[in-house]
């Protein structure tokens, strides 16, 4: 039998993928444009005998995740940009306590309350830790409903493997649009192994008592703990950098774009190719770790880059770091909830190519 393709909204596909990944606890708070995700979890988590709580705030929700994660359960929260800002304290604590968790950001435009339309203005916040202290989280950026489901599903195991929180950075367009999706195989959470670091079941685990905490007032000990975490980050950088390349090989200019702006850039690429312009697309799937090395290789081949973003220019700084002055890096962006059209992106690349 052929795989079942379901027509789903991004927000709902993310929810279903999390449930199939064995998520035992979801904690949310209403915010547009991710409300379908919270509603989906309310419908399906409680029905499955799992935990769903509409928390009193985003702050409470992330700390419920912290408590659930401390027991070793697969736990998740979701929100949109202003709500993700509120969760940053909790994400910092999760990192400090080396707890896995999945946080989904169906991003909207800012700053402040901003608007409810899609934006990529949370790139800095997502890829630079986001809260206080020295840390990073893995950041996965889907471009479609299918990829949103796949990356959310995988986020749980990645988070446990490296013991770092994983942020799925979608945006209002990915969350709200409907596409066909093939859903991953369900995992029964009861089959997942208990975690040696977690609290609970001390006797059955035959272990000493566990203390899940991020505090350490001894500078040498805290430094050692942070250095150990950064060694893990080095492993993540080696193992996890992901990207997609489209027609990059002979390209004079390569779009660098992720998520929704990568879809638009792909359209602009096709317009350019129809007109004989050598344009490629480099789409980071992991925003952290960012694929610096591959962009550096392409820069060494003399390729130029046009970072296309739904922001005033954030990822372009990582592209410049990767290129390190070896080539030209340009930027084209829209913000405030505007999505650039493929025509305007094409016009920009044609201008840069002198056509």
């Amino acid at each position, binding site marked *: 039998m052929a795989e079942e393709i379901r027509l789903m909204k991004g927000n709902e596909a993310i929810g279903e993928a999390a449930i199939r990944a064995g998520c035992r606890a979801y904690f949310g708070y209403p915010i547009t444009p991710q409300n379908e995700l919270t509603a989906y979890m309310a419908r399906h988590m409680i029905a499955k005998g799992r935990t769903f709580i509409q928390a009193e705030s985003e702050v409470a929700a992330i700390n419920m995740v912290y408590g659930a994660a*401390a027991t070793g359960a697969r736990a998740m929260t979701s929100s949109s940009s202003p709500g993700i800002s509120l969760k940053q304290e909790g994400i910092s604590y999760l990192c400090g306590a080396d707890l896995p968790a999945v946080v989904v950001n169906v991003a909207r435009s800012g700053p402040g309350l901003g608007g409810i339309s899609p934006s990529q203005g949370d790139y800095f916040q997502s890829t630079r830790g986001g809260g206080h202290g020295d840390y990073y989280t893995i950041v996965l950026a889907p471009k479609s409903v299918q990829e949103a489901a796949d990356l959310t599903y995988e986020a749980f195991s990645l988070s446990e493997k490296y013991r770092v929180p994983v942020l799925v950075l979608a945006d209002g367009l990915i969350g709200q649009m409907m596409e066909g999706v093939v859903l991953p195989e369900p995992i029964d959470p009861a089959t997942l192994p208990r975690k040696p670091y977690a*609290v*609970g079941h*001390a006797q059955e685990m035959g272990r000493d008592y566990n203390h899940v905490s991020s505090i350490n007032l001894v500078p040498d000990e805290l430094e050692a703990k942070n250095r150990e975490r950064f060694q893990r980050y080095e492993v993540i950088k080696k193992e996890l950098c992901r990207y997609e390349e489209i027609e990059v090989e002979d390209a004079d200019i390569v779009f660098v774009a992720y998520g929704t702006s990568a879809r638009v850039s792909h359209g602009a690429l096709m317009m350019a190719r129809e007109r004989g312009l050598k344009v490629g697309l480099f789409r980071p799937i992991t925003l952290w770790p960012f694929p610096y090395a591959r962009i550096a290789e392409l820069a060494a081949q003399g390729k130029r880059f046009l970072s296309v973003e739904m922001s005033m220019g954030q990822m372009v700084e990582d592209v410049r770091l990767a290129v390190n002055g070896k080539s030209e890096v340009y930027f084209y962006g829209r913000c405030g909830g505007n999505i650039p059209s493929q025509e305007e992106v094409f016009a920009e690349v044609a201008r840069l190519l002198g056509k």
Partner: protein
Amino acid sequence: MELAYGHPKSLKSIQTKYCPGCGHGVIHRLIAEVIDEMGLQTKSIITNPVGCSIWADLYFDFDSVQPAHGRTPAAATGVKRMLPDHLVICYQGDGDLAAIGTAEIIHAANRGEKFTVIFVNNAIYGMTGGQMAPTTLIGQHATTAPEGRDPINAGMGYPIRVSEMLATLEGTRYLARGAVNNPVNVRKTKQYIRKAFEAQMRGEGFTMVEILSQCPTNWQMKPLESVSWLEQNMITFYQLGEIKNTLSDAPASQAPKA
């Protein structure tokens, strides 16, 4: 010979960092004694607050989780929902519970989360050095109320009776206020803790024991003076006893109406 009295198993036999005359040590011991009596050492998890008792995990000999300041009831919610057959103790001070964590405590109580809050009310911020707490009494001095708490002219607000406030919420089943200023109150407080823990293990709703406790260092008193100050000033404002008891084994007068 039978051991009639000894150090509780659930409390490590090490010296604490708490100041002379501080109530945390006694409260820790009461919790540990009840856990031992109920045979729950390997099934207990404490979520400790930010404040002096952030060090609780050094002293209790069972699992612990240390969340962000004030978020203790949210984290305890996550722990208890995942481990409903464990004893989950949400240990909080007055800054953690009644100031920064007000939203979390009210909503955990209102959801009827099935853990027990041990709310240590010493009417001051201890760890940060004696700032005014939401429970600081009117006229009481603090580094941030140098002339004494003045609710009117300085706009410093009034001391909050948290237990009475939470009693209005239907999710709360057992709310009691004890004190550790003398042996009689210590024993009563232990009974409250035992009732709350037993109710939790029966799966009843939200339970909390508020405990009035001395902070001689930040009250700038000798330990003995602090004990009588608590009696004369705190107990008169924060009345002791069971504030709400709608547990299944509650006396008939307090049981929920059929």
